[in-house]
């Protein structure tokens, strides 16, 4: 019996399945985000310490989570390419990199805009902020490396997969940076031993926004994968046509 990943190994089957799933997951993302925004601005109370600025958390934290999840997708896909040679693994890794970079940038910008009124500074070189900045540069490195090797997509896929796997060490550093070092950034408040340290009136809107962002990420990832499969079809057809034309020309010369 085939596993789900084996069944999805066929790009044509993936295109058919993703075409059917994409509208549903996009709609789910839109509805969840709309409900999350309602909770954010009309239900969640101001924080007793941070006041109204806590509302930045409802977009900052999901963006930061997805920045890390995006890299996990890159790493798992890279593993799938290098070890199992899964036909869609490279497509998935390539599609996830710009999305992950965008969410990392959003985490950095919204964190900076939250930091100024709370810490008095847009930026400090503390462990959490610096490790997330490194994650952003890693994403840019993956995109740049692939772009530099554009003429040889197979080699580009393998090399970016190696970089993607090596770079995964940054994820535990980001996660535990607030525990390992003295940082200005607050420690984990949701995913921590002993349960969340946030009151449910703020936790629930945060989780709803996180779910909405996650659905949106998966919708965009599916769309980016579909685009990449189409791009590869265009490329292979164009190359086949060029080769056919060259053969015809060679026969004519003979």
């Amino acid at each position, binding site marked *: 019996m085939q596993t789900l990943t084996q069944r999805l190994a066929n790009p044509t089957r993936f295109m058919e399945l993703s075409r059917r799933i994409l509208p549903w997951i996009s709609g789910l993302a839109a509805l969840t985000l709309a409900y999350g925004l309602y909770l954010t601005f009309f239900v969640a109370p101001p924080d007793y310490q941070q006041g109204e600025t806590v509302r930045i958390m409802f977009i900052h934290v999901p963006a930061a989570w997805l920045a890390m999840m995006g890299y996990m997708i890159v790493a798992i896909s890279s593993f799938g390419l290098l070890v199992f040679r899964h036909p869609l693994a490279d497509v998935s890794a390539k599609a996830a990199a710009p*999305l992950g970079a965008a969410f990392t940038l959003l985490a950095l910008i919204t964190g900076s805009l939250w930091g100024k009124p709370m810490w008095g500074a847009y930026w400090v070189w503390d462990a959490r902020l610096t490790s997330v900045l490194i994650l952003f540069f890693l994403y840019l490195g993956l995109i740049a490396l692939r772009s530099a090797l554009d003429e040889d997509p197979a080699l580009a896929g393998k090399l970016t997969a190696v970089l993607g796997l090596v770079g995964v060490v940054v994820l535990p550093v980001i996660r535990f940076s607030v525990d390992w070092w003295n940082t200005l950034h607050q420690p984990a408040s949701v995913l921590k031993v002993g349960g969340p340290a946030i009151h449910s009136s703020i936790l629930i809107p945060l989780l709803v926004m996180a779910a909405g962002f996650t659905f949106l990420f998966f919708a965009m990832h599916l769309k980016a994968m579909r685009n990449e499969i189409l791009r590869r079809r265009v490329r292979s057809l164009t190359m086949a046509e060029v080769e056919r034309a060259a053969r015809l020309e060679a026969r004519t010369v003979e």
Partner: protein
Amino acid sequence: MDLGPHAAFIWASYAVVAFVLALLIAWLVADGKQQEHRLEELEARGIRRRSARAPGPGGDAA
């Protein structure tokens, strides 16, 4: 809605997120349309993938 003395930081955060996400979605939609258009152009010139070719007289799809 009164978001207090730091309202500008809150609105700026949401505006940046909305702008970047809108840009990403627009890029994905435009890229998809461009690839579909290029594929249609190739197919219109008779260049098709083997699996997309019409079956021959013997029913061979290759």
